[in-house]
């Protein structure tokens, strides 16, 4: 009321007031680079993170050559990979894939583009902050890229950057890494605060919390994880920078001798402290990787089985519980540090508990398939493949959560196999599913189904060829991070052949991405035109907004929501889907 009076009072200022929100005659830079439209920013995130994913993949393919044929010159490049370069590529592969690839794609791109439309908001709550968060991420990525070209190369102490190794690493690669991480963390903080406010504050009228699509829930929990778990790593990064640049000893123990020389520091610090601060972030980070993926899979399964998600409430509570529990399991990455029995018992218990919500979510998805009239289109195939692949990843994680079985398995290829099953055929398959699913919404055109199926089946086989042998090697005791893949170890001789199998799998995987890349670009211009609600879905982004949604406002008018997110195949309806914004009176 008062606000209205107020506008009458100062009508002269009203024009000025609204000027900022009219963007009809914006310039080129403003439209494509420094846009504040969440859709443009989402696309910027998407393109950048896909490029980084590709770069991380290329690094890995080069490393696979070194592992398959140690010290042989790489074709085309003509030189063999030295072990320093191998270490650098290994560290940067992890960093790029996780912090610059998967998280920005899952949270930055999909979170930015889809969440506001799914909650019926005209934009994110803080559009300029949104733009800032993308550009901070961009600068962080740039710093990581530049570190490849400095003397002595980029960081080489693994993506976990354990001190004291990382503290004494030569060159400035590690410094670049730390500064880059500070930027990436800042970007994540800005982005996640924005997503939380958008979801809580900008929900359309009638869209109560229990009517939110599961994807939005997943993004909400993810954002809370980013918001509260990332700052300790920022603190740790600052401390490590102090150690490296100002000569402090936060992570440097007393009496450290390197290469026979005592290190010239005050000492008294603790390398374990870094591990605590790092894993305090990095375990929630695992759920940051997997929750958006689960959200995408939930959307696609409900849509393509033409029935509601089974156990929506339990899914939501499981996601919340998962998020909370992820804060108290971090030390299961650290059994090898020799923690006391009481602490280790605590973390083993919480680790076993956290598997329960994951299983609840997976089971709910499986049961959702039961009795559905399933459409096997490309997004659905990827979503379906996610279930067993994530299952393998999750189940192989159980032995790693228990102290006694973790100690022989930790630092072997078993661990690599485990988390790659979660992230690569797990999360990345779900992200592919999301790209195929929302591509018509973003571009107004569909991707080609034939090429999509080639992409799917090829990738599905290749992924398993790549990662399954790692379990065999790991159980044989082959250590990870060996530049020669175990060539010089007697116990590794019998499983060396799997190195080549894995490598050919990886290169095969690369070949099967070609149809996707071709499909992606050709469909932008020549794809089959798609209707606004091409998948006959129920959620707001399909039912209330055109494809692509209107610039700067998404909707012609803010929709009102009357029902839950997955009202498929309601009895007595003409269609097998009932949009969230369809008024209740029409049912009668």
């Amino acid at each position, binding site marked *: 009321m*008062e606000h209205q009076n107020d506008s009458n009072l100062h009508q002269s200022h009203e024009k000025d007031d609204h000027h900022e929100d009219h963007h009809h005659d914006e310039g080129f830079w403003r439209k494509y680079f420094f846009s504040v439209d969440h859709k443009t920013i989402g696309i910027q995130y998407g393109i950048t993170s896909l490029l980084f994913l590709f770069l991380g993949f290329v690094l890995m393919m080069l490393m696979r050559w070194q592992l398959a044929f*140690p*010290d042989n010159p790489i074709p085309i490049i003509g030189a063999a990979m030295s*072990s*320093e370069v191998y270490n650098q590529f290994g560290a940067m592969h992890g960093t790029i894939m996780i912090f610059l690839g998967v998280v920005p794609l899952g949270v930055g791109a999909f979170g930015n583009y889809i969440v506001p439309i799914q909650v019926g908001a005209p934009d994110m709550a803080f559009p300029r902050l949104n733009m800032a968060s993308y550009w901070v991420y961009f600068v962080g990525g740039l710093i990581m890229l530049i570190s490849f070209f400095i003397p*002595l190369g980029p960081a080489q102490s693994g993506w976990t950057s354990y001190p004291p190794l990382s503290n004494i690493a*030569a060159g400035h690669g590690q410094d670049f890494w730390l500064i880059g991480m500070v930027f990436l963390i800042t970007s994540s903080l800005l982005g996640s605060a924005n997503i939380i406010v958008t979801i*809580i504050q900008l929900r359309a009228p009638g869209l109560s919390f229990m009517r939110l699509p599961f994807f939005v829930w997943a993004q909400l929990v993810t954002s*809370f994880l980013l918001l*509260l*778990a990332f700052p*300790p790593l920022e603190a740790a990064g600052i401390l490590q920078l102090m150690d490296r640049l100002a000569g402090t*000893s936060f992570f440097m123990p*007393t*009496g*450290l*001798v*390197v*290469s*026979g*020389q*005592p*290190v*010239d*520091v*005050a*000492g*008294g610090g*603790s390398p*374990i*402290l870094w591990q*605590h*601060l790092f894993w*305090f972030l990095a375990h929630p980070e695992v759920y940051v990787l997997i929750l958006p993926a689960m959200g995408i899979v939930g959307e696609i399964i409900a849509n393509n089985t033409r029935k509601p998600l089974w156990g929506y409430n339990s899914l939501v509570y499981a996601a919340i519980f998962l998020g909370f529990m992820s*804060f*108290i399991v971090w*030390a299961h990455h650290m059994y090898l*540090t*020799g*923690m*006391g*029995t*009481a*602490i280790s018992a605590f973390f083993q218990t919480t680790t076993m508990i956290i598997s329960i919500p994951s299983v609840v979510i997976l089971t709910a998805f499986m049961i959702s398939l039961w009795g559905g009239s399933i459409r096997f289109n490309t997004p659905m195939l990827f979503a379906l493949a996610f279930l067993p692949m994530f299952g393998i990843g999750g189940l192989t994680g159980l032995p790693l959560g228990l102290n006694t079985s973790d100690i022989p398995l930790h630092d072997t290829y078993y661990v690599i196999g485990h988390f790659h099953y979660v992230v690569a055929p797990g999360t990345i398959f779900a992200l592919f599913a999301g790209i195929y699913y929302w591509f018509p919404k973003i571009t107004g055109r569909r991707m080609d189904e034939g090429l999509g199926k080639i992409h799917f089946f090829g990738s599905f086989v290749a992924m398993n060829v790549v990662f399954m042998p790692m379990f065999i090697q790991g159980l044989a005791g082959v250590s990870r991070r060996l530049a*020669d893949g175990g*060539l*010089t170890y007697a116990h590794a001789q019998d499983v060396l052949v799997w190195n080549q199998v894995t490598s050919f799998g990886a290169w095969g995987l690369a070949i099967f991405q070609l149809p996707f890349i071709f499909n992606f670009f050709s469909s932008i211009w020549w794809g089959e035109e798609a209707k606004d609600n091409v998948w006959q879905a129920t959620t707001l982004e399909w039912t209330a907004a055109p494809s692509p949604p209107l610039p700067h406002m998404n909707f012609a008018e803010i929709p009102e929501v009357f029902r839950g997110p997955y009202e498929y195949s309601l009895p007595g309806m003409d269609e097998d889907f009932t949009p969230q914004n369809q008024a209740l009176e029409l049912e009668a």
Partner: protein
Amino acid sequence: MSEGHIHDVSQDVKKYLYVFLALAVLTVVTVGISYIDFGLSGSIVVALIVATVKGSLVAFYFMHLNHEKKSIYQLLGLTAVCFLILVFIALGATSNKHPYHDNEDEHRFQKEYNESLTHLHEHEQHEEVHEQDNAHSSDFTAPVGSPIGAYWRNKVFNPQQDGDGTSDTSSGDAIYGTSVISGLVTFEGKIPRMKSLMEEMSADIGCYGKYTTTDPISDTVVVGPSNTLANVLVRITEGPPIGRAYKATDEISAGRIQVAILDQYGCMYKPHILAVMAGQEITIKNSDGIMHNVHAIPTINSEFNKAMPKMTKKIDYTFQEEEQDPFPIKCDVHPWMGGYVSVLPHPFFSLTALNGKFEIKNLPAGTYLLEAWHEKLGSLTSTVEVREGEISESNFSFSKL
């Protein structure tokens, strides 16, 4: 903003002033209290209580938490829980420090720790005695578990080291002369008997198979006839050439230094000590024809670890940066295999053979500080003056440390 702010706010203004007074008083209190001795934990508790009261005043009145909505409280509750979990890290990490849990083990740990402290004190005294003639002790290893950091220790033991970096940084072109410093390195005292490696080698026929007539003897201290000492690196550390730029390729083509070859034969390094210039290529050979790996652990150069399976006959490697001290090189497959590599910025160095003789040629006239280094016996220095075209002699005599 919500309705009815006018009443809230204009009433609050007075409150703000009271809160300011309360905060000021509490600040005085917390400073005053710090002069009273409550014991450590007492002081922490008192200080944190006062700080919490002050913090709550700020949060409730200045940040208006007193009339804030439920949603903000929920968020703060969540943050508080995560904060407590995070601080729990410190507890977890400290309990990590003592892996022993029952009392007996704890006592043993404490005893070992105390012993290491006593050891440290002995070490300190020992160091001080040798302080004058052995300032740059190169094989100094930090006692494990010492409570004082290496930083302070170095400050105490090597106070002059601080100014070291500035001493000889003037650069210039390479200079040469015709002077020579030569001499003899001997060993004084009871010659230690080196153990046979036959037993350790017995696992690998590629190793012991090479010793049909002789016994493989450890080559850490090799003393020749008439007590001459082999494997001693003699180099100049101060003098006219120091700080000038020498290029390894030029030195080799002029024949002033030799081509560097490190061979692995009979599971030993030949030579045991290798001295090269920065930027000089080292050829590492594998004459054994069995699996070795060459693992160099330099300080400044990046670490180097190359496997040499039996088919790899030779690899080439170059250390680009000079190293102040020789660094170890070892084979992880055969733990007894060990040697040292010294990477120097100039060509003025010499290694003694079994006859204990060394000779440094092509020196310009001047006063030199000469350092003789042995991997086990430490290093000795002496000052030598040499005139143009002449030969100066300087002898070193090592004894057991």
